[in-house]
């Protein structure tokens, strides 16, 4: 699994480390880690609706912050549980641009085990780094 939950960074909230060979892979891992806090069985989410998002930021960590925040936004605004179908990150003009296709369906307590809401992505100890093996992020979610 390209993400692991960390016990030594927070008591009340949830911390995880996500990895990937490329920024895109790491972003997908981080999205999985975030959604799996709410719905541990991600396979129970069927791809019935899609949403496209475009984001830009001059820092890659804040791009990840915004990206994870989008998943939380759709969960509240449209009760949608979304997974990343595809994501592309491009760099140019001192700016990172992300486009992604998200797919999923409305939260349904009869179908999905819904554990706990993620309220927000926090910036406490938030970190995105390039490592010898690729990319890594450390994120604490507010529960």
């Amino acid at each position, binding site marked *: 699994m390209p993400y692991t939950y960390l*016990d030594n960074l927070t*008591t009340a909230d949830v911390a995880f480390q996500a990895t990937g060979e490329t920024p895109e892979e790491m972003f997908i891992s981080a999205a999985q880690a975030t959604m799996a806090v709410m719905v541990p069985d991600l396979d129970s989410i069927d791809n019935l609706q899609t949403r496209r998002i475009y984001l830009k930021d001059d820092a890659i960590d*804040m791009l990840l912050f915004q990206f994870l925040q989008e998943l939380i936004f759709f*969960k*509240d*605004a449209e009760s949608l549980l979304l997974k990343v179908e595809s994501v592309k990150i491009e760099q140019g003009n001192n700016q990172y641009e992300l486009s992604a296709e998200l797919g999923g369906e409305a939260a349904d*307590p009869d179908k999905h085990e*819904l554990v706990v*809401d993620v309220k927000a992505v*926090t910036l406490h100890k938030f970190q995105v780094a390039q490592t010898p093996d690729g990319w890594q992020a450390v994120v604490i979610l507010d529960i």
Partner: protein
Amino acid sequence: MVQIKTAKRISQALWEIPTSYKPGMRVPARIYAGEKLFEQMEDGIIEQITNVALLPGIVDYAFCMPDGHWGYGFPIGGAAAMDTRDGVISPGGIGFDINCGMRLLRTNLTYDEVKPKLEHLVDTLYKRVPAGVGAKGIVRLSKDDFCNLVEQGSKWCHKNGYAWQEDLERTEHSGCIQPADSKKCTQKAIERGFNQIGTLGSGNHYLEIQVVRPENVFDKELAQAFGIDRPDQVVIMFHCGSRGFGHQVATDYLQTFLKVMGPKYGLNMPDRELACTPFQSPEGQDYFRAMNCAINMAFANRQMIAHRIREVFSDIFHKDPHDLGLEQVYDVAHNTAVIEKHSVRGKQRELLVHRKGATRAFGPGRDELPPIYRKTGQPIIIGGSMETGSYLLVGIESGDQSFFTTAHGSGRTMSRRQAKRQFRGDKLQQDMKRRGIYVRCVSHAGLAEEAGPAYKDIDAVVESTAQAGISKPVVRFIPIGNVKG
């Protein structure tokens, strides 16, 4: 675990970390806790509360309450008062769940009257108070109506038939804080929140039916003044906040503040969650007005849930909610920054008091209190874990030492994952039923995360606040029924 030698013991339940602990600390940090609670605190709390002491404009001390635990930015249980003229405002001193808070309703009913209907009551509350991930609210509002609601708070509910006049009086700020300007909230925040009015949420948010045993009344006269006036009386307590709307307001302004704090205001903090701007800056004032909308949204959210609780009790007992004595005792906010006047070394000053996972605890005589509580002091509602019990406290004069701030709950001591490894939700639910607590929950895994042993000893937390003289216990409540989001 905290090294006791880090701090100087000021009194039985108060510890101080001097400014020499960390470069840049403007004031010492003060932690309220008995020795055992203090020793159990995580090192992260020391790091975070001493970071709070770095904030410009902080007055007297950076405070941490006895239920304090490791959070982001401020520790949960952190409080700091900033001068409104030259101090800062920081979303990290308020939290994402703006005005997460507690409401307490009393009844005329006793345990013997409720017991035969307890399961029916809890099952019906579970069905009719939306809870959990993705739940939609109990009223459909247009976005324009939602904007009115967030500017008016509980007043909107009263105008629309969801509140009694006295509910407003028995809510901090009468359920409507100003200045609140919905134009300072993003479209995203509005979209996240407009369909969530009257939802409980999840995590540590719950609705509980509780009983007051005669041996748990510590001050009969005050209990009476707060409507706790008969043996084995049943009350209803619930905990929830401003839902996605408040979370988004905080998220939006965290990003705004990060962009301007360094380049525009020359502010630099060791944790991005302590992003801040001068309170009097355009960004600071915009956030203040948006945050106040989230405070109002949470008041309205709890008001709608109170209305729904009255409907359910009325249906099940076939009586008007007035005849059931379903009056609101009080509603307290946990995560706010509010302008208050306080005496600082004999001088009246206007301060922006940040409380994050901490409760306002005004003593007797404060103008902000409604007439019925002006002589007694403010009722303070302390929610415990779902297994152990909760408290009603009162604010006292000596609370001025912490700008009238006290604890808010029992405070976690075990991480969520640890709790899930140690407890099983379905087994916990059965065990609790055997012990006389009937629980309905959206998720068993979510229930396991909230198991009693994952929290600090609520009795020790309350005792610490009493020893330190920041609040005084009035009544202890025992849970008998629980709805968990």
